[in-house]
């Protein structure tokens, strides 16, 4: 449970971090460290270089931008969970943040780190996906905006390039119903299955740990758009999905849980 050796740089600014990433081979960003360091300790990841951005205070913010709330990538889960602005403008996001890990994880882990890690079993990526958020990345050529639906590409694989930093998450405000259903065995665990539902005119649903990435329950969304009942729509929650099998749950059980939890989420969000 000790990582292999690596070189370490402490970035002085976003630009500095981008230049180190561009210069060094096999470099990874270190923010809260709660996704990367466990992988390194298990030697499932052995990056040659770590670029520590945890001191970049300019990336820790929650700001009202009119239609959306801008959340800095280095904002800790605890601060997301306790943001009054987010609680009133995007209440699902602080709720989901409050369900991540345990208190020590929430005080170290960052929203940007969780999203950039792109784990299909994590809570926040699914929430961002259901919220149709925009993700701001900075690289050597400046800033670009990536839509959440285009961000999660595969198992721990995102649209971020090796020399880009996720700096900001733009979360649209909404006033409708919402729900986050997280099913796990211990409070601090990843979801065995999770469901985020946001109702704002249309209903958007995303699933946690039902695929290699966070994924939208498109069959459910289509059924609802066609006027299906909650009961009927939740019945197709796992349609077309190949959920993982692991020690916590078989794929079949996950499919079943997805239906149960989508139904509960829809009942709460639409109720």
């Amino acid at each position, binding site marked *: *449970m*000790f990582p*292999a*050796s690596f070189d370490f740089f402490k970035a002085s600014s976003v630009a500095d971090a981008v230049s180190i990433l561009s210069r060094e081979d096999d470099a990874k960003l270190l923010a809260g460290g709660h996704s990367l360091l*466990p992988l390194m300790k*298990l030697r499932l990841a052995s990056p040659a270089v770590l670029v520590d951005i945890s001191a970049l205070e300019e990336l820790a913010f929650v700001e009202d931008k009119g239609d959306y709330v801008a959340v800095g990538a280095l904002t800790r889960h605890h601060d997301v969970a306790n943001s009054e602005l987010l609680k009133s403008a995007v209440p699902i996001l602080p709720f989901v943040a409050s369900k991540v890990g*345990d208190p020590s994880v929430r005080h170290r882990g960052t929203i940007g780190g969780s999203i950039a890690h792109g784990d299909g079993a994590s809570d926040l990526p699914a929430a961002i996906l259901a919220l149709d958020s925009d993700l701001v990345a900075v690289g050597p050529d400046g800033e670009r905006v990536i839509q959440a639906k285009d961000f999660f590409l595969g198992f721990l694989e995102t649209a971020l390039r090796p020399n880009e930093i996720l700096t900001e998450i733009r979360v649209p405000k909404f006033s409708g119903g919402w729900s986050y259903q997280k*099913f796990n*065995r*211990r*409070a*601090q*665990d990843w979801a*065995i299955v999770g469901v985020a539902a946001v109702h704002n005119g249309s209903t958007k649903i995303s699933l946690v740990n039902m695929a290699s990435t966070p994924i939208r329950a498109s069959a459910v969304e289509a059924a609802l758009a066609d006027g299906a009942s909650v009961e009927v729509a939740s019945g197709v929650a796992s349609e077309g999905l190949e959920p993982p099998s692991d*020690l*916590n*749950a*078989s794929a079949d*059980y996950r499919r*079943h*849980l997805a239906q*149960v939890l989508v139904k509960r989420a829809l009942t709460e969000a639409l109720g």
Partner: protein
Amino acid sequence: MTALITGSSERVTGTRLLRREDPKLLTGEAKFIDDITQQDVLYMALLRSPMAHARIDSVDTSAAMKMPGVVAVFSGADLKGDWVAPMPCAWPVTADMKNPPHYPLAADVVNYVGDAVAVVLASDKLSAIDATERIVVKYESLPVVLDLQDAASDRVLVHPDLGTNTSFVWEVTPDKAKVDHAFATAVHVVKSRYIQQRLIPSAMEPRGVLVVPQPYGGDYTVFSSTQIPHILKVMLSLTVGISETKLRVIAPSVGGAFGSKLNIYSEEVLALTLARKLHRPIRWTEERSENAQATIHGRGQLQDIDIAADENGKILAVRVNVLADMGGYLQLLTPGVPLLGGFLYHGLYDVPAYSFTCTGVFTNKTPTDAYRGAGRPEATFAIERSIDRLARKIGVDPAEIRRRNFIPAEKFPYASAPGLVFDSGNYLPNLEKALEMVGYPEIRSEQMKRRSGGSKKHLGVGLSCYVEMCGLAPSKVLGSLRYAAGGWESATVRILPTSKVQVVTGTAPHGQGHETSWSMIVSDRLGIAPDDVEVLHSDTSIAPYGLDTYGSRSLSVGGSAVFMATEKVLGKARQIAAHKLEASADDLDYKDGSFCVKGSPDKAVALSTIAFEAFTGHDLPEGVEPNLEATVTWDPPNFTFPFGTHIAVVEIDEDTGATELLRYVAVDDVGNQINPMIVEGQIHGGIAQGVAQALFEEAVYDGSGNLLNPTFTDYLVPSAAEYPSFELGSTVTPSPTNPLGVKGVGEAGCIASPPAVINAVVDALSDFGVEHVDMPASPEKIWTAIQSFRRSR
């Protein structure tokens, strides 16, 4: 004997005195192995087998030797001549028990994933760990055997030289004809099979060892995170071949053990061997995932239990066959663990006919050994699940069937069918108190209401009544069970010149709070403040005699020895006081720190005066030696038999299969309580670990023998968030077998709780015709059980 803790209203025993151990533990002042600084030390790292069963063709250490910081690398073959005996198994349970040779490093064959094959010594820890990855081992894979029944069939042999996987067959059947007759004539027979899954003890501090050779004289100081410094010293001497007089073993602060540090481990033997070989201090600290594979596992049994009962549900006979998983080798007490439960499968019920057979088999997995409860949780689970099934079969409430079967209070001391004598017990009031605390009729009515209302949240109530044998143990009895050591404990009490008191105990506390409890015992007897009593332990140079801490023995055996040594030293003080007061010793009262002549309270002399007098020796009575010191080595006449009733209330979500533990009531009877806060702490921790077995934890292996969950991400040790607040009560039935009237408490919670929870789960699922759910009762298992019921309709 009668309980002697009586007397003044100001007594300390029985109060919730805060633990003196805690400030230093809570502030980080306490020194664990890794906190002990040592210059010029070499760090040890082990290369462990990735194969569950393989022949070692070659070990090439040359590349590892060239790594920066590396000082030495050894394979098992390299060190073959460095030990004088194999790793010890101290409990050969039968004369013909098969015990394969087991050395600290495997030289020819590896027998489980995690078996150590080579060792690196380097100037820093990470260099040592990195260098292990450069050792090249060529393995020739051998067939593996993992399943217990498969192992018992001898289809594949773990140790072909033994000719069988069966290490031993051990039986206690006092009267087979009586058992056969009971089953032949019984109205009801309930046959069950239960699986005791393997558990990973998961002490918060993993193991660690530091061996420091003294530069002159050839002495070695061994610091180890162990619960048995005394036994370790003897065993190190016997395996490494260093005179016992040259060894000093110290257990510093130890961060939990639960039986997993009641052992002699390869790393301890290796570190001493290599310190001798290289004349350098050697240290090693276990990694977390290493702990999951290289430290012993608990449980690992397949139990078949049949109970025969008459038409009223009165149990006539219990017949048990256990297959017990030894793992790849026998560790210190591996074969004895199932035997500790072997006498208790009739629980606290008056059962006239009894048969227990245990077959211990080798598998290609981590060795098993004692884990909190060691044999008794398994026994309690089997009988408490089975009596619930019997109740359901004949349509009697689970509480009522227990009432009908309890050993009646007037039968104590109770001679049990398998041959024990239960010291004391009064089971019925204990059960009734627990039922009252939980509000049993109200819960049953809420349960019925939910059922008739078609609720998808099913309520279940589970009872578990338990009795266990602990306070290890009468040496003669241990001898008759072929255990290689005794069960006594030693204590020395010294009243120092300034009348402060020094207690030296042979127990080795690692979280139990002995310093606090022992000081309370002495404080009450001498009428001085607990803070004036220091308690020394866990260092073989300070406390040369001791049998350490395990098996819920320390208070009833070691605490009693402390009490008796206090009595003894007070007897000497009384002689000096009599001399001073020119009175007969029999004419003196002792109270609040002074002797006085009976009826003449003004003719008194303080203990402090006597203490100084004893120190100077200026004016002592004829034949009395200076100083106030007494040592007692106490061998208890019997085990102690604590008991209790635990009740779990669960709610099961029919849609997901999730179980929520809503309430947990425990009424324990551990005899007299020295410090109820410490008692409750033990019960809390025990319940938490038992509930963890019932609902969460299991060491899972794949078909090749790889442990699939060696991290806390995947091995589900629950946190406080998964438990309700426990509701604790107690009854007090003193033990007549020790002067304190106490019984053991360290394992009780862990023994009682698994069947309470599973009985509640099965009760909640009774609408679905579910008769049993194996541990851990995961949501998916429960969902699957509900699904198969629905499919069957």
